[in-house]
């Protein structure tokens, strides 16, 4: 029996900053000092504070070490594990003046409410026993031994759970539709093709708590009368794929998947299908087509998948985060769940914080939390004292929330009313240095690249929109272009075949709604207010401040700067490539952008 546990994050974020080497070294060091029978090292899923990885937590104290390096490991072992003296310099310290804190004491964790992420960072995802210890498979047992399929659907419907993948369709209703269609063969699918730039909560759930998804899918199989499940997971998530396969194997070994589960006579099994990286395969009909082995293209609905889905059979498809809520709702009841959140959006939502924010990572908050709380309290605010400009939610399908809407409680309907959407939960924070036209261009470039090409509005329409945006950012746009851009946006929204095309214009429309002045500045004044669009800015030297040190001229890669020693230098605008090197090098602040 162990007296202490060292939890090292093995999520993708921490793994890429070297956590696997830390685990290895930790085990070696523990053995060296002879503590291998007293202290156990556990590789867990993501804790959420990815910016501070690799993360190491030592229990029972709950000491939270951040930014740990392999070289720090011997010190942690000798000081903390052997002598009981936590290594203060490595402890995460929010204010740096307040003393060492444990994990749940931090502002980052205090305002969170973890349902979908409850096991992430707590259990070893490769051990089914640890999942069971946290009431794992209890919900499945309860459902199979004491509930009727309709009762399961009723609980989910009553809880108010809505799809966490983007559109927010009521989960219970979806199950009900499918259950109502008579058929011997039905399928349960899991959408783990998380493609929005900046979103990684599904990966985190799969890496940190894969059994929660398997258990929930089995419950749904019982509820709608299906015996086969598929998880469509992108191949770019190798750790998630590996842990899912381990989880499936372990569940089969315990007969929690397979024939006659819990002696109830109910059979269910799950298989993995790997996606090859097409964004459109996150759309439900395209995803099912891809599972069938065909080219991943969407098809018109109806018929909806609940009637005619995978292999032409009634099917349901839910997102990973949606599945991660299901078992807890079964165990704790629909009233418990519907007490969390707002009137029409129940429960919690996981957001992936990224961009200009201190605590890059994953946070799970009750619906109805304001953007201000997420960014200022949990996210730790904007670095370098910069001013908040907007938050982009919903990835390439979503839009921007400007500073004046920061106090709106975040839920599905509020976000749509201000021209954005929940999407899968990517939340990218933009500050005064971000150009909104450039942001719109970034997301549109993504959709143009990912358009499957099946329908004309999306294939050609988004391309034309992108061309107009490029024209504007080069200072060649006209007011007529702006009108055309808007018309085209609404046309594509109304006519595209699937969600990808229908939502592709959203980033443009929402930036035009809230940041029209920036578009106008680009078109009328040929000026980029944030100083991002290269074609519209020039670097200049203030002759009064320039001391003629020649440093800028020496570092200029394009030989665009001329001048003699101790005399003010000049930048030749025709040669300048606008790389900004001179500005970084100048010690006198003599170079400015305009």
């Amino acid at each position, binding site marked *: 029996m*162990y*007296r*202490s546990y060292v939890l090292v994050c093995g999520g993708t974020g921490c793994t890429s900053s070297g956590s696997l080497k830390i685990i290895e070294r930790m085990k070696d060091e523990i053995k060296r000092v002879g503590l291998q029978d007293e202290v156990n090292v556990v590789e867990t899923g993501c804790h959420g504070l990815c910016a501070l990885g690799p993360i190491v937590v030592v229990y*029972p104290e709950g000491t939270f070490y951040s930014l740990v390096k392999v070289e720090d490991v011997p010190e942690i072992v000798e000081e903390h594990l052997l002598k009981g003296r936590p290594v203060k310099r490595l402890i995460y310290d929010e204010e740096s003046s307040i003393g060492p804190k444990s994990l749940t004491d931090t502002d980052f964790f205090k305002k969170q409410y973890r349902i979908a992420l409850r096991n992430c960072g707590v259990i070893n995802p490769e051990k089914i*026993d640890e999942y*069971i210890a946290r009431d794992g498979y*209890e919900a499945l047992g309860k459902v199979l031994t004491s509930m009727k399929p309709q009762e399961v659907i009723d609980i989910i419907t009553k809880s108010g759970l809505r799809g966490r993948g983007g559109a927010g369709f009521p989960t219970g209703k979806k199950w009900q539709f499918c259950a109502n269609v008579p058929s011997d063969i039905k399928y349960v699918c899991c959408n783990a093709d998380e493609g929005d730039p900046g979103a990684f909560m599904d990966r985190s759930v799969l890496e940190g708590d894969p059994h929660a998804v398997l258990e929930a899918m089995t419950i749904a199989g019982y509820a709608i009368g299906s015996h086969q499940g598929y998880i469509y997971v992108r191949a770019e998530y190798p750790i998630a794929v590996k842990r899912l396969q381990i989880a499936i194997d372990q569940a089969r070994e315990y007969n929690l998947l397979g024939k006659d589960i819990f002696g109830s006579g109910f059979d269910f099994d799950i298989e993995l299908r790997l996606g090859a990286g097409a964004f459109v395969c996150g759309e439900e009909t395209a995803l099912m087509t891809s599972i069938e082995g065909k080219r991943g293209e969407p098809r018109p609905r109806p018929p909806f998948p609940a009637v005619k889905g995978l292999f032409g059979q009634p099917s349901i498809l839910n997102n990973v985060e949606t599945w991660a809520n299901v078992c807890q709702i079964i165990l704790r009841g629909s009233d418990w769940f519907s007490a969390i959140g707002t009137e029409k959006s129940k429960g919690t939502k996981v957001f992936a914080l990224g961009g200009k924010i201190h605590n890059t990572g994953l946070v799970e908050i009750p619906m109805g939390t304001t953007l201000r709380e997420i960014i200022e309290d949990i996210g730790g605010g904007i670095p370098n004292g910069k001013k908040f400009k907007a938050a982009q939610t919903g990835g390439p399908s979503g839009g921007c929330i400007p500073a004046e809407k920061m106090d709106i409680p975040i839920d599905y309907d509020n976000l749509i009313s201000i021209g954005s959407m929940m999407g899968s939960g990517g939340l990218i924070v933009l500050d005064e240095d971000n150009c909104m036209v450039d942001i719109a261009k970034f997301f549109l470039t993504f959709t143009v690249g990912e358009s499957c090409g099946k329908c004309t509005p999306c294939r050609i329409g988004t391309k034309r929109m992108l061309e107009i945006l490029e024209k504007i950012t080069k200072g060649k746009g006209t007011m007529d272009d702006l009108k055309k851009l808007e018309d085209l946006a609404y046309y594509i929204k109304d006519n595209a075949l699937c969600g990808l095309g229908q939502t592709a214009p959203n980033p443009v429309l929402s930036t035009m709604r809230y940041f029209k002045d920036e578009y106008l500045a680009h078109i009328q004044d040929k000026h980029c207010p944030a100083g991002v669009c290269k074609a519209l800015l020039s670097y200049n030297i203030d002759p009064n401040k320039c001391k003629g040190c020649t440093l800028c001229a020496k570092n200029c890669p394009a030989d665009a700067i001329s001048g003699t020693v101790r005399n003010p230098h000049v930048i030749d605008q025709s040669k300048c490539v606008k790389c900004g090197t001179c500005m970084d090098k100048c010690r006198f602040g003599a170079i400015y952008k305009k």
Partner: protein
Amino acid sequence: MKTLEELRAIRDKMKNQIDLREEDKGDRIRVQVGMATCGIASGARPVLNKFADLVQEKGLSGKILVTQTGCIGLCQYEPIVEVLEPGKPKITYVKMDAGKAEEVFEQHLVRGQALGKYTLATQDIK
């Protein structure tokens, strides 16, 4: 596995290990074993392990937190064990060993009766 009982058996077996990783909400009894150089030299490690094992064996991880602490300055009385129970005065046991640890666990932690004979107060401090 065919029954819910089998599932629960696994859960109960594993629960104590997982409970050890629960964040301390301040409602558990804290057992702090002095594990500085002085403590280790006079044999604190077997004491710490005895407490840790007993707590897990009896399934009390959710109620009792066994942790190490540094030197409190009374090196000649090591191994020192402090028992901190919310709302009660701190009890300090001195010159502990694994056998005394077992006694303290049974009498104090389980039955709630502090063992006067091993406490600092009864020792002759000169």
